[in-house]
């Protein structure tokens, strides 16, 4: 339950499900097999998604239209992952995961000083963009969504990864939306948080039916994550975007190292 609380706190902060921390914990320390660990983690991903989105709703941070459009791809990825994953070994998957997280960490570090918002509020945000009140400059800012196919492709991959590893998939979507698609960090995180619930719901019922979800352990993890996500939410609304990115890069680097060590 304590690990659930820590995972939930960090997850809420970064728009990730928190599964990135929970899966290695349940798998490596608690000794559960990978599929059970991933399924329990997916349950907490839905809990984090609902709790965090309920907390951010009304702040104009969630981009509902972009989220729903990307959910088409991420849910398809979730459904498809069942087939894909069965054909790959755990080692192959874990190695791939280590490489991907390392790449995103590097990408994040190179974009630390970049800001995606346009301060001129007369600019048309387009059908998928939006406006929001920016805490750092104190005024209203506008952003446009760019490279939509990249966002859709990433969401599909995120759906795959989510179902395979029991993570939210925000670990892929948030950096890509932020660095390549012009979406501000907080909007990326809030929109991703909303999306991961549906992404997880697109594969979890199958894992639940297969008996991979251990109900008492899942309950303990969910309750822990719910407590932890309150803390993450509070901190996330106050922290500076630069520090959020730095923390995210560090977390990704750590996860990458853990998985590399596991598979070598």
């Amino acid at each position, binding site marked *: 339950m304590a690990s659930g609380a820590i995972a939930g706190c960090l997850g809420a902060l970064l728009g990730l499900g928190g599964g990135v921390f929970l899966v290695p914990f349940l798998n490596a320390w608690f000794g559960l097999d990978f599929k059970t660990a991933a399924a329990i983690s997916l349950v907490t991903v839905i*809990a984090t998604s609902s709790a965090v*989105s*309920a907390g951010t709703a009304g702040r104009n941070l969630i981009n509902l239209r972009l989220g*729903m459009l990307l959910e*088409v791809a991420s849910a*398809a990825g979730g459904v498809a992952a069942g087939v894909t994953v069965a054909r790959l070994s755990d080692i192959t998957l874990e190695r791939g995961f280590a490489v991907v997280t390392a790449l995103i960490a590097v990408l994040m570090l190179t974009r630390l000083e970049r800001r995606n918002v346009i301060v001129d509020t007369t600019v048309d945000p387009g059908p998928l963009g939006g406006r929001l009140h920016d805490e750092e400059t104190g005024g209203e800012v506008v952003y446009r969504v760019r490279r939509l196919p990249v966002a859709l492709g990433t969401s599909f991959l995120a759906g795959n990864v989510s179902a395979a590893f029991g993570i939210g998939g925000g670990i892929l979507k948030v950096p890509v939306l932020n660095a390549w698609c012009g979406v501000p960090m907080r909007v990326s995180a809030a929109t991703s948080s909303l999306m991961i*619930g549906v992404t997880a719901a697109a594969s979890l019922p199958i894992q639940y039916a297969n008996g991979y979800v251990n109900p008492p352990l*899942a309950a303990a993890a969910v309750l822990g994550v719910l407590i932890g996500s309150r803390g993450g939410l509070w901190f996330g609304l106050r922290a500076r975007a630069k520090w959020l990115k730095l923390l995210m890069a560090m977390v990704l680097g750590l996860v990458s190292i853990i998985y590399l060590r596991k598979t070598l």
Partner: protein
Amino acid sequence: MNDDAPSLGRLEVRLGHLLVTGVIASAILLAIGLGFWLSGSHMTAAAWLLNAGLIVLMSTPILRVLVSFAEYVAMKQWFFVGVTVLVLLELTVTVLVALHRLSAFP
């Protein structure tokens, strides 16, 4: 875009209420179920409560998509109605596969 910003904002708040209700309901079921399970008594009730909590939790995001669908229909935003239908179809496939597995291996 800006004409429908207030209705999108209302949808965001409504979805927020739905999500918080789902989370609280499932957390209560899971907490009581876990309590029973840890105490070692009422194991049938514990199993029922734990599974009910998990099912409520899994249903919440699906309900969220259903509410979005109804709202986009009300707003007459047909492109997003279509997008929401696609997501619902994908979720239906998952639920059907899960129900099929459950009936195959009880």
